[in-house]
């Protein structure tokens, strides 16, 4: 192609839309209750589904009798989700699903299904390594350098135990879907992070052609990594619908089931021993870690985190399988836990060295992949947190019962962009459609797509109709790993530029110039540098006559154009008050300094970081999935006992996004994961700084704080 457009982003001073604080385009619809989530879908004759789950953590199904339920008035169909003889490995496992005229009747029907179990011994406490037996699988020792010699040569050593429990994704919109058959065609309304692929996944499970499934979703009520697949309730819902002569079936998990099986992230615990020189240089790391991702265990955490280049290392990890639902990807998988284990051990070492942690981390920034970035961020965060005024050596706080403390946590993430295809259509009336099989998880994807299109086409953001959330649109990747904004912004940029080039070709002869001499700006197609010689956007599009322009744009992950990049750094500093009489920790402030490349929409980017910080506060201070060792069940399967922060629990959050030219020129980089990583460590370290002792295992609840103060285990 002779005139391949230059896709690169406009220079910062030339941007009209990108970089402006654009309001979320679907904001009014969502806040007014007009947005339709899949759980809101209403279909004529729709049935309501419910799922019967296994109450035992480990059992064999010996019999299932659905005859009484089948005879119940209002019950339309029943689908078995477990077979007689099947061995069940966790409580909450789905055994049968019912579709009925109302959710009340469906629940009655569940009670009428008789399931017989042979109970088997269970194991649910991964911290009981002695009792784990064959459930614990140690990996081989990984050694770098000469750790033994390095410990001999170290001036100072420090040893501690740190842990992060299993957390639930806890999306507010529960997992589930509406399914409806029309002949052999299946209409599917999932709540998903992957609208382009989830229907094909369901088709595979149902053994039907992928072309027979049409997936749609206007809005999704939270995912955080737990909504990529159709799960087991997808095919069950489709079968319920099929057995009910194709009638639509709405099948969503109740909150208890949601908090038992819909998604969790692994726990990680580690005994970590470190050695350093007198000047604070970290020379050796030795860790024995373990953790669980439910049934099947979990891989080793990425430790040492961020400070990867410690010259002498010894790492051993034990994967513990327990009778609990399997882990799912949780926003920056394994990174928040690894950051907590690493940064807490490092701050304990700094305390032993009598070093200011800012000085200590600065000293060791050379062990990271981005020393200059981390150093700059560390000092920026320290400035915003008033470190020099507020920090004090560990334990040397005010004499009153409320102690103030500051602590630091680090993050990193990769990003880049997922494969994405975008189709732009320009109609002869001037209207513009941009279509992608993508989804907006609340991150502002819809708005970012419109902004990129508006920037390219020189039209207002509101002139762009963004169509996402439908498998009929060109395939775009799943929203995971902070790859969405990179993927969709690159494909949208290319697609809209390709469409604009076609429009230039149409209009150029009318203006007596070559297409390459034209530009689109302020709602006009005009000769570059000569705004008077041009046409309004509408007049230009009218020249299309009966034609429309439809052009694709593709992002193939590492494609050319310099539009996107990967690999970011971030530093967070927490400021807390701890009441040493009650053990209650309160947030004063959390400062987040984050690098994320070119920021398309600073407003929603900032919201992402706010949200990530609040999620860290939840994880550091209150969240924890608690297993009952007696029954093997999740004890806190409701929001009464699975604690999340409220509006009064978060203190103030200060976000600083690195938008300096050296960051901006890297292109767009996703922001969903990195800022959720460092907060746990920052808060844990702030509490240690406040009270003078380490509270080892999150969440930092009053009982654990008081126990640590008294020098015993909680």
């Amino acid at each position: 192609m002779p005139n391949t457009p230059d896709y690169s982003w406009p220079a910062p001073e030339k941007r009209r839309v990108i970089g402006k604080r654009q309001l979320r385009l679907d904001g009014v619809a969502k806040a007014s209750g007009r947005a339709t989530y899949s759980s809101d879908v209403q279909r004529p004759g729709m049935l309501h589904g419910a799922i019967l789950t296994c109450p035992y953590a480990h059992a064999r199904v010996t019999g299932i009798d659905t005859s009484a339920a089948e005879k119940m008035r209002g019950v339309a169909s029943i689908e078995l989700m477990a077979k007689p003889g099947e061995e069940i490995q966790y409580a909450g496992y789905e055994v049968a699903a019912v579709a009925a005229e109302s959710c009340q009747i469906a629940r009655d029907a569940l009670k009428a299904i008789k399931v017989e179990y042979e109970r088997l011994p269970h194991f649910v406490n991964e911290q009981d390594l002695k009792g784990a037996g064959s459930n614990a699988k140690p990996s081989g020792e990984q050694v770098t350098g000469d750790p033994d010699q390095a410990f001999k040569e170290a001036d100072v050593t420090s040893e501690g135990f740190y842990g992060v429990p299993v957390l639930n994704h806890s999306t507010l919109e529960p997992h589930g879907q509406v399914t409806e058959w029309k002949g052999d065609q299946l209409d599917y309304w999932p709540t998903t992070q992957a609208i382009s692929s989830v229907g094909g996944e369901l088709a595979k499970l149902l053994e039907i052609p992928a072309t027979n499934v049409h997936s749609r979703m206007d809005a999704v009520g939270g995912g955080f990594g737990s909504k990529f697949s159709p799960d087991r309730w997808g095919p069950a819902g489709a079968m319920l619908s099929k057995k009910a002569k194709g009638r639509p079936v709405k099948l969503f998990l109740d909150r208890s089931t949601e908090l038992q099986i819909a998604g969790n992230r692994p726990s990680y615990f580690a005994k970590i021993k470190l050695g350093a020189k007198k000047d604070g240089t970290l020379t050796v790391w030795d860790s024995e870690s373990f953790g669980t991702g439910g049934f099947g265990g979990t891989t080793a955490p990425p430790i040492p985190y961020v400070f990867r280049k410690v010259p002498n290392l010894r790492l051993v990890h034990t994967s513990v399988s327990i009778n609990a639902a399997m882990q799912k990807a949780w926003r920056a998988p394994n990174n928040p836990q690894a950051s907590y284990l690493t940064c807490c051990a490092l701050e304990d070492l700094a305390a032993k060295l009598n070093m200011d942690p800012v000085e200590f981390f600065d000293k060791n920034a050379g062990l990271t992949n981005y020393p200059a970035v981390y150093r700059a961020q560390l000092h920026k965060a320290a400035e915003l947190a008033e470190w020099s005024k507020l920090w004090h050596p560990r334990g040397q706080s005010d004499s009153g019962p409320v102690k103030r403390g500051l602590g630091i946590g680090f993050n990193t993430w990769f990003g880049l962009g997922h494969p994405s295809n975008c189709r732009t259509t320009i109609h002869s009336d001037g209207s513009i459609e941009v279509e992608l099989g993508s989804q907006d998880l609340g991150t502002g994807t819809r708005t970012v797509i419109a902004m990129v299109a508006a920037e390219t086409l020189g039209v207002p953001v509101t002139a762009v109709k963004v169509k996402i959330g439908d498998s009929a649109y060109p395939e775009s990747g799943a929203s995971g790993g902070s790859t969405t904004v990179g993927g969709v912004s690159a494909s949208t940029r290319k697609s809209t530029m390709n469409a604009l080039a076609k429009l230039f070709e149409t209009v150029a002869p009318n203006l007596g110039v070559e297409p390459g001499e034209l530009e689109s700006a302020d709602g006009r197609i005009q000769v570059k540098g000569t705004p008077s010689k041009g046409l309004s956007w509408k007049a230009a599009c009218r020249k299309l006559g009966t034609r429309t322009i439809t052009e694709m744009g593709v992002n193939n992950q590492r494609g050319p154009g310099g539009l996107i990049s990967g690999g970011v750094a971030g530093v967070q500093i927490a400021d807390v008050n701890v009441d040493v009489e009650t053990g209650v920790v309160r947030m004063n402030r959390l400062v987040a300094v984050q690098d994320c490349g070119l920021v398309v929409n600073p407003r929603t980017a900032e919201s992402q970081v706010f949200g990530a910080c609040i999620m860290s506060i939840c994880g550091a201070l209150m969240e924890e999935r608690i297993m009952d060792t007696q029954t093997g069940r999740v004890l806190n399967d409701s929001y009464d006992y699975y604690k999340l922060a409220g509006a009064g629990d978060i203190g103030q959050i200060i976000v600083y996004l690195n938008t300096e030219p050296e960051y901006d020129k890297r292109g767009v980089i996703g922001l969903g994961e990195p800022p959720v990583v460092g907060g746990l460590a920052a808060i844990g370290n702030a509490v240690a700084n406040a009270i003078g002792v380490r509270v080892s295992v999150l969440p930092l609840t009053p009982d654990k704080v008081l126990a640590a103060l008294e020098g015993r285990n909680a």
Partner: protein
Amino acid sequence: MRSRKEPEPEPREPRAGVSRRGFIRGVGISGAVGAGVLEAETQAPAQRPAAKVIGPGPVAITLQVNGKPYPVTVEPRTTLLDTLRDRLGLTGAKKVCDRGACGSCTVLIGGKAVYACNIFAVEAQGKEIQTIEGLTADAKPHPIVKAFVENDAQQCGYCTTGFVMTTKAFLDKNPNPTFEQVEEGLAGNLCRCGTYMGLRRAVLQAAKEMKGGSHA
């Protein structure tokens, strides 16, 4: 961590058609009957006029929602939330915890914020129910909605309608709140995406904008 809002206080006087006592006799005390009901029962005056027993089968009732009557037939055990969402097609109130812990289903009854999952539809008869659809019926965004959008007080949006309704009830009672009062006022609602920074600012902005004007 703060105390959540209490369920709608139980009415002291028997209503036409159904009384608490008669209702419980009718359906039996099941797991679905919340603690609030049991308390009300033990605190109720010893003598009440005899009331008509309804249920457990479906009963015809009329709900007054957003100024319009909605005749509907429901089993007495059906919550107001399930009735709004599954029977009346009003899905703005979201079903999240279904147990009065998260506030995502908040509606206004007689101007007070109530968790729609925590009361039965039959209890809501004869009362003025306002849902998010009623509050935001105008083409022009309600000042609370406007403030939410301008402060980016939402991400996935699933908790948002509940927060908007809570804010409406809160500001009606506290037209000039302090920042700390806003934190207290929102304590009965949960957000998972972490939008409290925008939410707190939005409520303060809405308070300013709603001053002097009357808003439905």
